[in-house]
Protein backbone atom coordinates (compact mmCIF):
# COMPACT_ATOMS: atom_id res chain seq x y z
CA UNK A 1 0.00 0.00 0.00
CA UNK A 2 1.35 3.46 -0.93
CA UNK A 3 2.58 5.55 2.02
CA UNK A 4 2.85 9.31 1.79
CA UNK A 5 1.89 12.47 3.62
CA UNK A 6 -1.30 14.26 2.58
CA UNK A 7 -0.36 17.90 2.04
CA UNK A 8 -3.70 19.20 0.83
CA UNK A 9 -6.94 17.56 1.88
CA UNK A 10 -10.29 17.51 0.13
CA UNK A 11 -11.99 20.59 1.64
CA UNK A 12 -8.94 22.84 1.34
CA UNK A 13 -8.28 21.40 -2.15
CA UNK A 14 -11.67 22.70 -3.33
CA UNK A 15 -11.09 26.08 -1.65
CA UNK A 16 -7.71 26.37 -3.37
CA UNK A 17 -9.26 25.72 -6.79
CA UNK A 18 -11.94 28.32 -6.04
CA UNK A 19 -9.28 30.83 -5.02
CA UNK A 20 -7.34 30.23 -8.24
CA UNK A 21 -10.52 30.77 -10.29
CA UNK A 22 -11.24 34.02 -8.48
CA UNK A 23 -7.66 35.20 -9.05
CA UNK A 24 -8.11 34.59 -12.78
CA UNK A 25 -11.38 36.52 -12.87
CA UNK A 26 -9.75 39.34 -10.88
CA UNK A 27 -7.02 39.57 -13.53
CA UNK A 28 -8.94 38.86 -16.72
CA UNK A 29 -12.51 39.97 -15.96
CA UNK A 30 -14.68 38.93 -18.88
CA UNK A 31 -11.80 36.94 -20.46
CA UNK A 32 -11.68 39.07 -23.57
CA UNK A 33 -8.96 37.86 -25.91
CA UNK A 34 -8.00 35.26 -23.32
CA UNK A 35 -7.87 31.50 -23.57
CA UNK A 36 -7.02 28.54 -21.36
CA UNK A 37 -4.69 25.71 -22.40
CA UNK A 38 -4.28 22.60 -20.24
CA UNK A 39 -1.23 20.34 -20.57
CA UNK A 40 -1.98 16.63 -21.11
CA UNK A 41 -2.42 14.42 -19.22
CA UNK A 42 -2.71 15.45 -15.59
CA UNK A 43 -2.70 19.18 -16.24
CA UNK A 44 -5.97 18.74 -18.13
CA UNK A 45 -7.60 17.34 -14.99
CA UNK A 46 -6.79 20.65 -13.28
CA UNK A 47 -7.75 22.82 -16.26
CA UNK A 48 -11.11 21.01 -16.55
CA UNK A 49 -11.78 21.91 -12.91
CA UNK A 50 -10.67 25.48 -13.38
CA UNK A 51 -12.92 25.91 -16.43
CA UNK A 52 -15.84 24.41 -14.49
CA UNK A 53 -15.07 26.65 -11.52
CA UNK A 54 -14.89 29.80 -13.69
CA UNK A 55 -18.26 29.05 -15.28
CA UNK A 56 -19.75 28.39 -11.81
CA UNK A 57 -18.70 31.89 -10.70
CA UNK A 58 -19.82 33.62 -13.91
CA UNK A 59 -22.08 31.65 -16.25
CA UNK A 60 -21.74 34.25 -19.00
CA UNK A 61 -17.97 33.76 -19.32
CA UNK A 62 -16.89 32.60 -22.78
CA UNK A 63 -13.38 31.71 -23.86
CA UNK A 64 -11.45 29.19 -25.96
CA UNK A 65 -10.26 26.12 -24.07
CA UNK A 66 -7.65 23.79 -25.52
CA UNK A 67 -5.64 20.76 -24.43
CA UNK A 68 -2.08 20.33 -25.58
CA UNK A 69 0.14 17.24 -25.49
CA UNK A 70 3.87 17.91 -25.30
CA UNK A 71 5.27 14.38 -25.72
CA UNK A 72 6.84 15.16 -29.11
CA UNK A 73 8.42 18.34 -27.71
CA UNK A 74 10.14 16.73 -24.74
CA UNK A 75 13.86 17.41 -24.38
CA UNK A 76 14.57 13.87 -23.11
CA UNK A 77 13.49 11.97 -26.25
CA UNK A 78 16.17 9.37 -27.14
CA UNK A 79 17.58 9.71 -23.63
CA UNK A 80 15.05 7.28 -22.19
CA UNK A 81 15.01 3.52 -22.70
CA UNK A 82 11.56 3.48 -24.25
CA UNK A 83 9.49 6.05 -26.15
CA UNK A 84 6.43 7.75 -24.65
CA UNK A 85 2.93 7.59 -26.06
CA UNK A 86 1.26 10.92 -26.66
CA UNK A 87 -2.23 11.81 -25.49
CA UNK A 88 -4.66 13.73 -27.67
CA UNK A 89 -4.10 17.38 -28.49
CA UNK A 90 -7.39 19.28 -28.84
CA UNK A 91 -6.54 22.78 -30.03
CA UNK A 92 -8.99 23.95 -32.65
CA UNK A 93 -8.03 27.62 -32.33
CA UNK A 94 -4.91 29.73 -32.83
CA UNK A 95 -3.35 31.66 -29.95
CA UNK A 96 -2.16 34.56 -32.14
CA UNK A 97 -2.55 37.76 -30.14
CA UNK A 98 -4.26 35.99 -27.22
CA UNK A 99 -3.52 36.00 -23.50
CA UNK A 100 -2.91 32.34 -22.70
CA UNK A 101 -3.38 30.80 -19.26
CA UNK A 102 -1.25 27.66 -19.35
CA UNK A 103 -2.24 25.08 -16.76
CA UNK A 104 -0.37 22.10 -15.34
CA UNK A 105 -0.93 20.30 -12.05
CA UNK A 106 2.60 20.24 -10.58
CA UNK A 107 5.48 22.58 -11.46
CA UNK A 108 8.67 20.64 -10.77
CA UNK A 109 11.78 21.13 -12.95
CA UNK A 110 10.09 23.40 -15.48
CA UNK A 111 11.01 21.22 -18.48
CA UNK A 112 7.38 20.34 -19.22
CA UNK A 113 6.52 24.05 -19.33
CA UNK A 114 9.47 24.76 -21.63
CA UNK A 115 8.20 22.05 -24.01
CA UNK A 116 4.66 23.42 -23.71
CA UNK A 117 5.80 26.95 -24.63
CA UNK A 118 7.49 25.61 -27.77
CA UNK A 119 4.38 23.61 -28.68
CA UNK A 120 2.15 26.63 -28.02
CA UNK A 121 4.29 28.69 -30.38
CA UNK A 122 3.16 26.39 -33.18
CA UNK A 123 -0.35 27.74 -32.78
CA UNK A 124 0.62 31.40 -33.24
CA UNK A 125 2.32 34.17 -31.27
CA UNK A 126 0.45 34.78 -28.02
CA UNK A 127 0.19 38.28 -26.57
CA UNK A 128 1.30 36.87 -23.22
CA UNK A 129 1.39 33.53 -21.41
CA UNK A 130 0.76 33.10 -17.69
CA UNK A 131 1.30 29.87 -15.80
CA UNK A 132 -1.12 28.35 -13.30
CA UNK A 133 -0.19 25.35 -11.14
CA UNK A 134 -1.89 23.60 -8.26
CA UNK A 135 1.49 22.70 -6.74
CA UNK A 136 4.73 24.70 -7.01
CA UNK A 137 7.84 22.71 -6.02
CA UNK A 138 9.76 25.93 -5.83
CA UNK A 139 13.28 24.64 -5.01
CA UNK A 140 13.35 21.83 -7.64
CA UNK A 141 13.62 23.95 -10.77
CA UNK A 142 16.12 23.13 -13.57
CA UNK A 143 15.06 26.14 -15.66
CA UNK A 144 14.17 29.77 -14.89
CA UNK A 145 10.39 29.25 -14.97
CA UNK A 146 7.97 30.49 -12.28
CA UNK A 147 4.19 30.28 -11.91
CA UNK A 148 1.93 33.33 -11.96
CA UNK A 149 -0.77 31.59 -9.96
CA UNK A 150 -0.10 28.68 -7.62
CA UNK A 151 -2.29 26.71 -5.25
CA UNK A 152 0.29 25.55 -2.72
CA UNK A 153 4.04 25.69 -2.46
CA UNK A 154 5.94 22.54 -1.47
CA UNK A 155 9.57 22.58 -0.38
CA UNK A 156 10.94 19.09 -0.97
CA UNK A 157 14.15 17.40 -2.08
CA UNK A 158 14.55 16.43 -5.74
CA UNK A 159 13.87 12.72 -5.18
CA UNK A 160 10.52 13.37 -3.48
CA UNK A 161 7.42 12.74 -5.55
CA UNK A 162 4.28 14.87 -5.42
CA UNK A 163 1.05 13.30 -6.64
CA UNK A 164 -2.26 15.03 -7.19
CA UNK A 165 -5.23 12.68 -6.72
CA UNK A 166 -8.48 13.58 -8.44
CA UNK A 167 -11.99 12.58 -7.39
CA UNK A 168 -12.87 11.48 -10.95
CA UNK A 169 -9.94 9.11 -11.25
CA UNK A 170 -8.57 8.31 -7.81
CA UNK A 171 -11.74 8.68 -5.75
CA UNK A 172 -10.52 11.64 -3.70
CA UNK A 173 -9.21 15.19 -4.20
CA UNK A 174 -5.86 15.50 -2.43
CA UNK A 175 -2.17 16.25 -2.86
CA UNK A 176 0.24 13.68 -1.44
CA UNK A 177 3.98 13.93 -0.85
CA UNK A 178 5.98 10.70 -1.13
CA UNK A 179 9.62 10.09 -0.21
CA UNK A 180 10.24 8.95 -3.78
CA UNK A 181 8.40 7.81 -6.87
CA UNK A 182 8.64 4.10 -6.03
CA UNK A 183 6.84 4.64 -2.71
CA UNK A 184 3.87 6.09 -4.61
CA UNK A 185 3.08 2.85 -6.45
Amino acid sequence: MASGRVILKQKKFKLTIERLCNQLIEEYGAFENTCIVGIQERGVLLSDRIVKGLKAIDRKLEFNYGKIDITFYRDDFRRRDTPMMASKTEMDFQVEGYNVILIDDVLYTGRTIQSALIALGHYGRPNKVELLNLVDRRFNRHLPIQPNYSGIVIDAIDEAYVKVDWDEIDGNDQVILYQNREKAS
Partner: protein
Amino acid sequence: MAIVSALSKKHLLGIKYITDKDIETIFSTADNFKEVLNRPVKKVPSLRDITVANLFFENSTRTRMSFELAEKRLSADVINFSASSSSVTKGETLLDTVNNILSMKVDMIVMRHPAPGAPYFLSQNIDASIINAGDGTHEHPTQALLDAFSIREKLGTVKGKKIVIVGDVKHSRVALSNIFCLQKLGASVAVCGPPTLIPKHIKELGVQVFYNVKKALEWCDVANILRIQLERQDIKYIPSLREYALYYGVNKDLLDSLSKKIVIMHPGPINRGVEINSDVADSAQSIILDQVENGVAVRMAVLYLLASGNTQGS
Protein backbone atom coordinates in the same frame (compact mmCIF):
# COMPACT_ATOMS: atom_id res chain seq x y z
CA MET B 1 1.98 10.16 -20.64
CA ALA B 2 2.06 6.40 -21.08
CA ILE B 3 5.34 4.68 -21.75
CA VAL B 4 5.25 2.34 -24.73
CA SER B 5 7.77 -0.28 -25.59
CA ALA B 6 10.00 0.44 -28.54
CA LEU B 7 9.51 -1.86 -31.51
CA SER B 8 10.68 -5.42 -31.05
CA LYS B 9 13.27 -5.03 -33.80
CA LYS B 10 15.96 -2.44 -34.45
CA HIS B 11 15.09 -2.27 -38.16
CA LEU B 12 11.93 -2.37 -40.24
CA LEU B 13 12.99 -4.87 -42.89
CA GLY B 14 9.63 -6.50 -43.50
CA ILE B 15 6.26 -7.16 -41.92
CA LYS B 16 7.20 -10.82 -41.42
CA TYR B 17 9.80 -9.82 -38.80
CA ILE B 18 7.58 -7.63 -36.60
CA THR B 19 4.79 -8.59 -34.23
CA ASP B 20 1.12 -7.63 -34.17
CA LYS B 21 1.88 -5.66 -30.98
CA ASP B 22 4.48 -3.65 -32.95
CA ILE B 23 1.85 -2.90 -35.59
CA GLU B 24 -0.64 -1.68 -32.96
CA THR B 25 2.07 0.53 -31.40
CA ILE B 26 2.84 2.02 -34.82
CA PHE B 27 -0.87 2.67 -35.42
CA SER B 28 -1.41 4.42 -32.05
CA THR B 29 1.64 6.60 -32.65
CA ALA B 30 0.50 7.35 -36.21
CA ASP B 31 -2.90 8.52 -34.84
CA ASN B 32 -1.05 11.21 -32.88
CA PHE B 33 1.12 12.20 -35.82
CA LYS B 34 -1.95 12.49 -38.05
CA GLU B 35 -3.21 15.17 -35.64
CA VAL B 36 0.17 16.94 -35.88
CA LEU B 37 -0.21 17.03 -39.67
CA ASN B 38 -3.45 18.96 -39.29
CA ARG B 39 -1.90 21.71 -37.18
CA PRO B 40 -0.92 25.13 -38.53
CA VAL B 41 2.75 24.32 -37.88
CA LYS B 42 3.14 20.71 -38.96
CA LYS B 43 6.41 20.07 -37.18
CA VAL B 44 7.61 18.52 -33.95
CA PRO B 45 11.23 18.62 -32.75
CA SER B 46 11.56 14.94 -31.79
CA LEU B 47 14.23 13.94 -34.35
CA ARG B 48 16.13 17.23 -34.40
CA ASP B 49 19.40 15.48 -33.54
CA ILE B 50 19.09 12.77 -36.19
CA THR B 51 20.25 12.62 -39.79
CA VAL B 52 18.41 10.28 -42.14
CA ALA B 53 19.69 9.21 -45.54
CA ASN B 54 17.13 8.22 -48.18
CA LEU B 55 18.87 5.77 -50.49
CA PHE B 56 16.72 5.11 -53.52
CA PHE B 57 18.26 2.70 -56.00
CA GLU B 58 14.93 2.53 -57.86
CA ASN B 59 12.59 5.24 -59.12
CA SER B 60 9.91 6.50 -56.76
CA THR B 61 7.66 9.52 -56.36
CA ARG B 62 5.20 8.75 -53.61
CA THR B 63 7.38 6.75 -51.21
CA ARG B 64 10.37 9.01 -51.52
CA MET B 65 8.40 12.21 -51.01
CA SER B 66 6.39 10.64 -48.20
CA PHE B 67 9.52 9.58 -46.31
CA GLU B 68 11.22 12.91 -46.88
CA LEU B 69 8.16 14.79 -45.62
CA ALA B 70 7.87 12.50 -42.60
CA GLU B 71 11.53 13.07 -41.71
CA LYS B 72 11.25 16.84 -42.11
CA ARG B 73 8.05 17.00 -40.05
CA LEU B 74 10.02 15.31 -37.26
CA SER B 75 12.77 17.98 -37.69
CA ALA B 76 15.37 15.45 -38.82
CA ASP B 77 18.13 16.44 -41.23
CA VAL B 78 17.61 14.67 -44.53
CA ILE B 79 19.97 13.70 -47.33
CA ASN B 80 18.77 12.11 -50.54
CA PHE B 81 20.69 9.66 -52.65
CA SER B 82 19.67 8.62 -56.11
CA ALA B 83 21.56 5.73 -57.68
CA SER B 84 21.49 7.10 -61.20
CA SER B 85 23.48 10.22 -60.24
CA SER B 86 25.94 8.53 -57.88
CA SER B 87 29.15 6.51 -57.92
CA VAL B 88 27.07 3.33 -58.15
CA THR B 89 27.25 3.97 -61.89
CA LYS B 90 31.07 3.75 -61.53
CA GLY B 91 30.74 0.31 -59.93
CA GLU B 92 30.77 1.17 -56.18
CA THR B 93 29.22 -1.67 -54.13
CA LEU B 94 26.17 -1.29 -51.92
CA LEU B 95 28.14 -1.81 -48.71
CA ASP B 96 30.82 0.71 -49.74
CA THR B 97 28.15 3.26 -50.67
CA VAL B 98 26.42 2.87 -47.33
CA ASN B 99 29.60 2.85 -45.22
CA ASN B 100 30.74 6.04 -46.91
CA ILE B 101 27.42 7.66 -46.05
CA LEU B 102 27.53 6.40 -42.47
CA SER B 103 31.03 7.84 -42.04
CA MET B 104 29.36 11.22 -42.43
CA LYS B 105 27.47 10.52 -39.18
CA VAL B 106 24.13 9.54 -40.69
CA ASP B 107 21.96 7.84 -38.07
CA MET B 108 19.24 6.06 -40.04
CA ILE B 109 18.87 4.69 -43.54
CA VAL B 110 15.70 4.45 -45.60
CA MET B 111 16.44 2.25 -48.59
CA ARG B 112 14.70 1.11 -51.74
CA HIS B 113 16.69 -1.43 -53.75
CA PRO B 114 15.86 -3.73 -56.69
CA ALA B 115 17.47 -6.80 -55.04
CA PRO B 116 15.27 -8.72 -52.58
CA GLY B 117 17.08 -9.03 -49.27
CA ALA B 118 19.36 -6.01 -49.80
CA PRO B 119 18.15 -4.28 -46.59
CA TYR B 120 18.59 -7.56 -44.65
CA PHE B 121 22.16 -7.86 -45.99
CA LEU B 122 22.87 -4.30 -44.89
CA SER B 123 21.42 -4.87 -41.43
CA GLN B 124 23.97 -7.65 -40.87
CA ASN B 125 26.84 -5.33 -41.76
CA ILE B 126 26.07 -1.89 -40.32
CA ASP B 127 24.96 -0.43 -36.99
CA ALA B 128 22.45 2.19 -38.14
CA SER B 129 18.69 1.47 -38.17
CA ILE B 130 17.33 0.55 -41.58
CA ILE B 131 13.85 1.05 -42.96
CA ASN B 132 13.05 -1.01 -46.04
CA ALA B 133 11.24 1.19 -48.57
CA GLY B 134 10.88 -1.71 -50.98
CA ASP B 135 13.30 -4.45 -51.93
CA GLY B 136 12.62 -5.90 -55.35
CA THR B 137 9.60 -8.20 -55.32
CA HIS B 138 10.05 -9.03 -51.64
CA GLU B 139 8.50 -6.57 -49.13
CA HIS B 140 7.34 -2.95 -48.81
CA PRO B 141 6.47 -2.82 -45.11
CA THR B 142 5.50 0.84 -44.73
CA GLN B 143 3.05 0.54 -47.64
CA ALA B 144 1.35 -2.40 -45.93
CA LEU B 145 1.23 -0.50 -42.65
CA LEU B 146 -0.38 2.55 -44.22
CA ASP B 147 -2.82 0.36 -46.15
CA ALA B 148 -3.92 -1.42 -42.97
CA PHE B 149 -4.03 1.90 -41.09
CA SER B 150 -6.32 3.31 -43.79
CA ILE B 151 -8.63 0.29 -43.58
CA ARG B 152 -8.74 0.68 -39.79
CA GLU B 153 -9.57 4.36 -40.21
CA LYS B 154 -12.35 3.68 -42.73
CA LEU B 155 -13.92 0.57 -41.22
CA GLY B 156 -12.99 0.93 -37.53
CA THR B 157 -10.92 -2.26 -37.44
CA VAL B 158 -9.00 -4.66 -39.66
CA LYS B 159 -9.89 -7.79 -37.65
CA GLY B 160 -12.49 -9.97 -39.32
CA LYS B 161 -12.52 -7.94 -42.54
CA LYS B 162 -12.10 -9.50 -45.97
CA ILE B 163 -9.52 -7.92 -48.22
CA VAL B 164 -8.76 -8.93 -51.80
CA ILE B 165 -5.61 -7.89 -53.63
CA VAL B 166 -6.27 -7.62 -57.35
CA GLY B 167 -3.65 -7.55 -60.06
CA ASP B 168 -0.02 -8.44 -60.62
CA VAL B 169 0.48 -10.27 -57.33
CA LYS B 170 3.46 -12.21 -58.68
CA HIS B 171 5.70 -9.14 -58.98
CA SER B 172 4.23 -7.15 -56.11
CA ARG B 173 6.09 -6.47 -52.88
CA VAL B 174 3.03 -4.48 -51.79
CA ALA B 175 0.91 -7.64 -52.08
CA LEU B 176 3.25 -9.77 -49.99
CA SER B 177 3.64 -7.22 -47.21
CA ASN B 178 -0.11 -6.64 -47.20
CA ILE B 179 -0.80 -10.37 -46.86
CA PHE B 180 1.52 -10.62 -43.83
CA CYS B 181 0.22 -7.44 -42.21
CA LEU B 182 -3.49 -8.07 -42.68
CA GLN B 183 -3.21 -11.65 -41.46
CA LYS B 184 -1.32 -10.55 -38.35
CA LEU B 185 -4.20 -8.17 -37.65
CA GLY B 186 -6.82 -10.91 -38.02
CA ALA B 187 -8.19 -10.20 -41.49
CA SER B 188 -8.98 -12.73 -44.24
CA VAL B 189 -6.98 -12.15 -47.39
CA ALA B 190 -7.57 -13.23 -50.99
CA VAL B 191 -5.77 -12.53 -54.24
CA CYS B 192 -7.27 -12.18 -57.69
CA GLY B 193 -5.75 -11.94 -61.14
CA PRO B 194 -4.92 -13.87 -64.29
CA PRO B 195 -3.31 -17.25 -63.43
CA THR B 196 -0.02 -16.09 -64.98
CA LEU B 197 0.19 -13.26 -62.43
CA ILE B 198 -0.73 -15.28 -59.32
CA PRO B 199 2.23 -17.10 -57.71
CA LYS B 200 1.93 -20.88 -57.88
CA HIS B 201 2.14 -21.65 -54.16
CA ILE B 202 0.43 -18.56 -52.74
CA LYS B 203 -2.26 -20.67 -51.06
CA GLU B 204 0.43 -21.84 -48.63
CA LEU B 205 0.34 -18.34 -47.17
CA GLY B 206 -3.28 -18.98 -46.17
CA VAL B 207 -4.85 -16.79 -48.87
CA GLN B 208 -7.82 -17.61 -51.07
CA VAL B 209 -7.37 -17.35 -54.84
CA PHE B 210 -9.95 -15.92 -57.26
CA TYR B 211 -9.51 -15.83 -61.02
CA ASN B 212 -12.82 -13.99 -61.56
CA VAL B 213 -12.78 -10.38 -60.46
CA LYS B 214 -16.54 -10.08 -59.94
CA LYS B 215 -16.55 -13.06 -57.56
CA ALA B 216 -13.56 -11.59 -55.74
CA LEU B 217 -15.23 -8.20 -55.31
CA GLU B 218 -18.50 -9.84 -54.21
CA TRP B 219 -16.55 -11.70 -51.48
CA CYS B 220 -14.57 -8.78 -50.10
CA ASP B 221 -15.07 -5.71 -47.91
CA VAL B 222 -12.00 -3.99 -49.34
CA ALA B 223 -10.31 -4.31 -52.74
CA ASN B 224 -6.67 -3.27 -53.04
CA ILE B 225 -5.99 -2.80 -56.77
CA LEU B 226 -2.42 -3.22 -57.97
CA ARG B 227 -0.76 -1.68 -60.97
CA ILE B 228 0.27 -3.91 -63.85
CA GLN B 229 4.03 -3.72 -63.48
CA LEU B 230 5.28 -3.55 -67.04
CA GLU B 231 8.82 -2.72 -65.93
CA ARG B 232 9.10 -6.06 -64.10
CA GLN B 233 7.83 -8.20 -66.97
CA ASP B 234 10.63 -9.63 -69.09
CA ILE B 235 8.20 -12.10 -70.70
CA LYS B 236 4.59 -11.58 -71.67
CA TYR B 237 2.29 -12.59 -68.81
CA ILE B 238 -0.84 -11.07 -70.37
CA PRO B 239 -1.83 -10.70 -74.03
CA SER B 240 -2.28 -6.91 -73.79
CA LEU B 241 -3.22 -4.17 -71.34
CA ARG B 242 -6.55 -3.86 -73.17
CA GLU B 243 -7.39 -7.49 -72.50
CA TYR B 244 -6.37 -7.14 -68.86
CA ALA B 245 -8.63 -4.10 -68.51
CA LEU B 246 -11.49 -6.04 -70.10
CA TYR B 247 -11.27 -9.03 -67.74
CA TYR B 248 -9.77 -7.58 -64.55
CA GLY B 249 -10.21 -3.82 -64.73
CA VAL B 250 -12.37 -2.36 -61.97
CA ASN B 251 -14.99 0.05 -63.34
CA LYS B 252 -18.14 1.71 -62.03
CA ASP B 253 -20.54 -0.76 -63.65
CA LEU B 254 -18.77 -3.65 -61.95
CA LEU B 255 -18.87 -1.90 -58.56
CA ASP B 256 -22.53 -0.98 -58.92
CA SER B 257 -23.40 -4.60 -59.74
CA LEU B 258 -22.15 -5.81 -56.35
CA SER B 259 -24.55 -6.50 -53.50
CA LYS B 260 -22.70 -4.12 -51.15
CA LYS B 261 -20.48 -1.06 -51.29
CA ILE B 262 -16.83 -1.98 -50.95
CA VAL B 263 -13.78 0.15 -50.19
CA ILE B 264 -11.33 0.72 -53.07
CA MET B 265 -7.59 1.12 -52.51
CA HIS B 266 -4.54 1.46 -54.76
CA PRO B 267 -0.90 1.95 -53.74
CA GLY B 268 -0.24 4.15 -56.80
CA PRO B 269 0.76 5.11 -59.37
CA ILE B 270 -2.54 4.45 -61.12
CA ASN B 271 -2.80 3.31 -64.74
CA ARG B 272 -6.18 4.92 -65.40
CA GLY B 273 -8.28 2.80 -67.74
CA VAL B 274 -6.19 -0.34 -67.15
CA GLU B 275 -6.53 -1.83 -63.67
CA ILE B 276 -8.90 0.90 -62.50
CA ASN B 277 -11.14 3.47 -64.18
CA SER B 278 -11.30 7.13 -63.25
CA ASP B 279 -14.93 6.87 -62.17
CA VAL B 280 -13.82 4.35 -59.52
CA ALA B 281 -10.51 5.95 -58.52
CA ASP B 282 -12.20 9.31 -57.96
CA SER B 283 -15.37 7.94 -56.36
CA ALA B 284 -16.58 8.19 -52.76
CA GLN B 285 -15.71 4.53 -52.21
CA SER B 286 -12.04 5.17 -52.96
CA ILE B 287 -9.61 5.94 -50.14
CA ILE B 288 -6.59 6.26 -52.45
CA LEU B 289 -5.75 9.82 -51.42
CA ASP B 290 -6.35 8.98 -47.75
CA GLN B 291 -3.71 6.29 -48.15
CA VAL B 292 -1.22 8.92 -49.31
CA GLU B 293 -2.09 11.23 -46.39
CA ASN B 294 -1.83 8.38 -43.92
CA GLY B 295 1.50 7.36 -45.44
CA VAL B 296 3.24 10.40 -43.97
CA ALA B 297 1.77 9.82 -40.48
CA VAL B 298 2.64 6.10 -40.51
CA ARG B 299 6.20 6.78 -41.68
CA MET B 300 6.59 9.44 -38.98
CA ALA B 301 5.51 6.82 -36.43
CA VAL B 302 8.01 4.26 -37.73
CA LEU B 303 10.86 6.80 -37.72
CA TYR B 304 9.94 8.02 -34.23
CA LEU B 305 9.74 4.53 -32.72
CA LEU B 306 12.93 3.26 -34.39
CA ALA B 307 14.84 6.45 -33.46
CA SER B 308 13.88 6.12 -29.82
CA GLY B 309 15.55 2.72 -29.80
CA ASN B 310 18.83 4.42 -30.72
CA THR B 311 19.22 6.07 -27.32
CA GLN B 312 22.16 8.39 -26.93
CA GLY B 313 24.97 6.81 -24.98
CA SER B 314 23.50 3.32 -25.26
